[in-house]
């Protein structure tokens, strides 16, 4: 089965869903909803020959207030790769379990439950696999979980707070802010070692 044929069939079976070919040949994307995703995946597995569930990724879209689940499935026979995306509400996130389709989806869902707080009713084991059982914070891979803040709260070393240099550098050390700090550190070391300060726009940082 070629990609075009698959897209044609998918559109026929799931007229409400978006079926989009991706940039790379042999890749396509199906955007569907929570209620139809099990149907889409069942069809892909049983009718279209997509044997292999690679992974289920979660993405937290903080601004949209949604969590996206991406099911990566692959067909060994047709050498096609399909990405099935659904979005669930961020405040009450849940999705249907697919561990009856692919048994190894169980740990994947367990992991997403652990790190994004998405519930999968019907999954036999949603206990914490990686986090400690007594974890009471927000699910850690959500965008509003700040690991630095969490560490400060958890450990609270006195020197950490008293000398604000360390904490403030660590706080600022991300994104565009990082560049300025790295630059100043480099300049400082160049001054100490007597080298010329590095020019903008050179290779690696």
């Amino acid at each position: 089965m070629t990609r075009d044929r698959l897209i044609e069939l998918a559109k026929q079976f799931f007229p409400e869903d978006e079926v989009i070919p991706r940039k790379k040949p042999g890749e396509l994307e199906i955007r569907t909803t929570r209620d139809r995703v099990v149907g889409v995946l069942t069809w892909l597995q049983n009718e279209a020959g997509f044997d292999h569930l690679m992974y289920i990724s979660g993405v937290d879209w903080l601004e949209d207030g949604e969590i996206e689940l991406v099911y990566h499935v692959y067909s060994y026979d047709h050498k096609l790769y399909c990405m099935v995306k659904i979005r669930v509400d961020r405040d009450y996130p849940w999705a249907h379990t697919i561990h009856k389709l692919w048994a190894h989806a169980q740990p994947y869902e367990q992991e997403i439950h652990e790190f994004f707080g998405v519930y999968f009713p019907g999954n036999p084991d949603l206990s914490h696999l990686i986090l400690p059982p007594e974890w009471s914070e927000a699910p850690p891979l959500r965008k509003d979980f700040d690991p630095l803040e969490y560490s400060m709260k958890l450990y609270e070393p006195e020197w950490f707070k008293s000398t604000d240099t360390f904490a403030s550098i660590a706080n600022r050390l991300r994104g565009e802010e990082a560049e300025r700090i790295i630059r100043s550190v480099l300049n400082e070391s160049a001054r100490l070692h007597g080298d010329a300060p590095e020019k903008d726009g050179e290779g690696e940082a």
Partner: protein
Amino acid sequence: MNREIYLPDGYTTIRKIGERDGYEVYDLFFGPNHPGMHGNFGYVLDMMGTEIVRVRPNAGMLHRGFEKAMERKKWVQNLALIPRVCVVDPDPNEVAYCQAVEELLGVEAPERARYLRTITLERSRLTAFLMGMGGVGGAIGLYSATYLMMADRDRLLDMFEALTGARVYHIFNVPGGVRRDAPEGWFDGVLKVLDELESNIPDWDKLVFENPVVWARLEGLAPITEEEARRGGLVGPNLRATGAKFDVRRDAPYAAYGELDVEMHNAGDGKADALTRAVQVRLEYEATIRLIRQAIAKAKKLPSGPVRADVGPLHKLRVPKGDAYSKVESSKGEFGYYIVSNGGYTPYRVSVRGPSMPAGIHLAKTQLPGVKIDDVAAWMATLAICSPDIDR
């Protein structure tokens, strides 16, 4: 929550007989502090006598929060983190990540870089196979195999050091290509090391793969059918050992694999037990050596040229909005990186698909019950379960 779903057939009967005879089900911690366990991973085994009745994976001791950390670091800084996702076979991570970034950027690595990537990946596979084959020996008490193969691995690491300056975590790939071209005479050095490795193969065969005790231990242990492996998410040598003819390098070629002839070997036909899986690794080990020779022969003829596409200053790299999934065949199977960018200096989300999770978590729960404590380490070693990519 109903945890009893993973109980094997006959568990209730065994338990009843056991209870009538006054046996007790007790917990045994197989790892994290256990010589048979690779890495800080563990299973809590519910045991009766020496037989396992239930398995609870006990992950998290090695969890370093890489996926979260990558969201806070720049695109190029992440290159220092990702090799650590799989310790024994670090290069597939780098290549998968760089390929995903390249796909989003819309650039392509130059030909020389693609060949260098191929050669690095395959040598990394060799080191992992040597560790894997030695690990099978170590799991069943044949420590000589572990030590001897580790010595071979060291030769390969020397060549890595000559190329990249590092022995284990090479950080050789960057978005757009590789960091530097191979130094003068490096290809010949690799060929010399390969000769040495090839001359050692008969010895390893005699020591491990023709050893009657190894056969007695591994034959018939934990069989998996082809259908189970395909549907169960098993990849790489574990899948090919069952007779399935799938290889990312052939099915979705990346780097320079499209121009090379990647051999397909199947140790089993329709079904694979632990011995078949061990032999599969041995077959692929030899095939990998031939593949590197092939790649080097072609790479030597390439005209000199750049090894890195121009993507601008790397520390100011901004990747256009979008998402990409890139996969690479590592020594344990398919390694996938799903990367989402919102156009910033840092990734919006990096999701890592390690090859070990289906086997290490799911298969452990279904296959280990009924197995004796003797075989847990051998089971793990032949399935090449690498705990760092479960706990990443």
